[in-house]
């Protein structure tokens, strides 16, 4: 039993150990290889890191619930893009002209509603057809992306509202607006998963769906709620990001789903469902962003970054497997 606990500890703590290793490595390597004079662990740089983590991190929280549930959502990148288009475009619609800066709330509301509706659609199809979430969201990934292109062709959609930009670029207690959003979302989802019945049921369904049904849990509606949560978070992520940038390309958010799944898996959530932790997902997105930033800091190009992250992902899953096997064997004795 002791060793089982140790394995659990190693698994929970592993992502944070990995982050510490990254920090040490890039700080030291940065001394010799960096193009800039600034230290890697400079406070400004770290604050920026959190800010840059926010768009993926916010969605990753939703993905953690979905994956604990035993599902997956591949459509988040497309939902992200479509919500961004709605956000920026709606603010320039003539009918809202009289609202002045009040249009910001309209834009946000419509964008968030978009995410909620797209997520609900995914969830409804998964619930009512019983088709695997992988297939359903693979379809909706293509479909939703199609809607983005139908909206404005290959053209970017742009709208800059300076009040909004000021808000998005603001710093409160040193942290940027997107960072605050990430922290609030993380805390909210943590409460949802650890303190509410919905969270308890999510783990139960992912671990043993049949037993969950036999305990009277209505699995279909439960899953639909989770898809609505992740849809909402995908649009919230778009709202936070595009409030600042003010321009969205129809290709934006592509491959987001894969980066997010990578982060969630790095954080120790099982693809098969039933296990996973919000705090570790937070570590997972941080670790990936740190890696991207660190490699850039020492002068590596994007292709190198992808190669390294791919290798690390496989290595981590291999280690995880070893720990699990060991844990099981210890339990038997």
């Amino acid at each position, binding site marked *: *039993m002791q060793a089982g606990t140790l394995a659990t500890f190693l698994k929970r703590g592993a992502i944070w150990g990995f982050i510490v290793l990254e920090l040490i490595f890039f700080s030291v390597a940065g001394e010799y290889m960096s193009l800039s004079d600034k230290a890697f662990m400079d406070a400004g740089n770290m604050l920026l890191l959190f800010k840059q983590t926010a768009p993926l991190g916010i969605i990753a929280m939703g993905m953690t619930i979905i994956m604990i549930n035993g599902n997956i959502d591949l459509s988040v990148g497309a939902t992200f893009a479509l919500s961004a288009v709605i956000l920026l475009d709606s603010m320039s619609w003539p009918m809202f002209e009289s609202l002045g800066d009040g249009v910001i709330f309209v834009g946000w509301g419509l964008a968030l509603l978009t995410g909620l509706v797209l997520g609900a659609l995914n969830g409804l199809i998964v619930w009512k057809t019983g088709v695997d979430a992988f297939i359903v969201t693979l379809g909706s990934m293509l479909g939703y992306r199609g809607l983005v292109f139908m909206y404005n062709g290959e053209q970017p959609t742009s709208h800059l509202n300076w009040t909004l930009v000021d808000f998005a670029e603001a710093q409160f207690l040193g942290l940027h607006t997107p960072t605050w959003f990430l922290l609030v979302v993380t805390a909210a989802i943590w*409460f949802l998963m650890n*303190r*509410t*019945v919905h969270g*308890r*049921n999510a*783990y*139960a369904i992912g*671990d*043993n769906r*049949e*037993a*969950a*049904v*036999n*305990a*009277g*849990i*209505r699995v279909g509606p439960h899953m639909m709620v989770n898809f609505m949560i992740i849809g909402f978070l995908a649009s919230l992520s778009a709202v936070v990001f595009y409030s600042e940038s003010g321009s969205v390309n129809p290709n934006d958010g592509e491959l987001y789903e894969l980066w997010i799944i990578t982060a969630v898996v790095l954080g120790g959530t099982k693809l098969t469902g*039933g*296990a996973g932790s919000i705090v570790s997902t937070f570590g997972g997105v941080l670790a990936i962003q740190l890696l991207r930033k660190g490699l850039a800091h020492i002068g590596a190009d994007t292709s190198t970054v992808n190669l390294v992250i791919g290798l690390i992902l496989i290595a981590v899953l291999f280690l995880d497997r070893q720990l699990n096997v060991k844990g099981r064997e210890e*339990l038997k004795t």
Partner: protein
Amino acid sequence: MTDHIPALHLQGIVKTFPGVRALDDVSFEVMPGEVHALMGENGAGKSTLMKVLGGIYQPEEGQIIVGEEPVVMTSPLHAKSKGIVFIHQELSLAEELSVAENIYLGELPRKSFGRVDWGKLFAQTNEILEKLKVSFDAKTIVGELSIANQQMVEIARALTVDAKAVIFDEPTASLTDAEKVVLFDVIRDLKDQGVGIIYISHRMEEVFRMTDRVSVLRDGSYRGTLETTETNEDEITQLMIGRSLDLSRNKTHAELGEVALEVRGLSCGDLYSEVSFDVRRGEVVGFYGLVGAGRTEIAETLFGLRDPSAGQILLDGQEVRIHSPADAIARGISLVPEDRKAQGLVLGMNCRDNMTLPQVDDLKAGPFMAEGAEVSIFDQYRDKLDIRTPGWKQLVGNLSGGNQQKIVIGKWLSMHPNVLIVDEPTRGIDVGSKSEIHNLIRDLASQGYAVIVISSEMPEVLHVSDRIVAMFHGRIMRTFTSEEVTEDNLIQAISGIESTEAA
């Protein structure tokens, strides 16, 4: 029986598992051209014996002799190469492939460059199929065949080798009467070709119709072999149950209360039909029958997992419709399922969370779970049911079978159900915990719960039940009170020998 060398001879087979002597000095032989029945209650050791024969388990003592050659079996494939072939109750066929490919799976005839020699394959297959006199040919896709014909494919697969002994494990479990006739013809043909046949079945009628001799196992030990023509059902039953049951029969009648659950003419497709019974508060009603008799399906209907095709369910005299487990739970019906690990427990969750899973929503305070209340419920039922665990944080997957079962029972008791259905209460549970669970069930009845116990173990049903419903092929054959039931009349009722109870 043309010569005197057995086709297959088992000598003094001993197989032990920690704490259990699963097979204790089992010996019997099958002559060429003989159909030899192997009988025994569930848990008597039949399947362990088959696994020894198939090389899945290695016996500690004894030997297996095929023809005149002692063989140490290492795998089912090895057994097959020695001419010992199994026809399992569950079919293992690739449904998308043709009959021929299934029969020669893994050993398809080849031409140069690894190409399949289709001509030879189909020719060989049709040759075998002809012997079996079946209505389909080598190119038929297996998924398109009926279950009976799929079984024929399994048998055909057995005939690709020079079989010395073929073991049929409950071959008629999923066959209609007409299909059985075809199967019996095939078995007779095999017999005429001098193959020795071991026929495992619970069904007396088939044993008397088909077999030459009957060997009986009980509690892992060999109880004797009888010539089928010189024995009768009573004698075989006697051998199977034998001992005066060490479990005392339940005679203590608790004060019976009102009828809690009544079922009238309930049917569900061809799974079961016209089932009527009632359960009173303070009463344990046992359901006994063979696997596939429809008992679990009735429980699943009451729990909302299956919709009935006809009939009524009444709770406290009110007709109810139950479409989901959530409906059932809301009406106070709870089910301790047959397979607790797959259907009853979330193994990766701790004891407390498992126990309170159906009621966390009722317990919650505001938006958040009331974890303190959950712990006190867990503590209360841990003490009540004597669940042995270091604490509520322990993962359920780490508990013993008996303690896991108590968690499932505690889960429902803590919600004070009207009707508690327990499907196979002691499957996979060690002997000591068994009697604890039995006493627990009796206690629950005396506290006024209405309890349904489904079991395939006769001593268990006899021990815990106030009344016993005997089922055969989806029908209730007879309902016994604990005074009138005997092992004999019960086993006859579930074998379909006695005619349906006059309504």
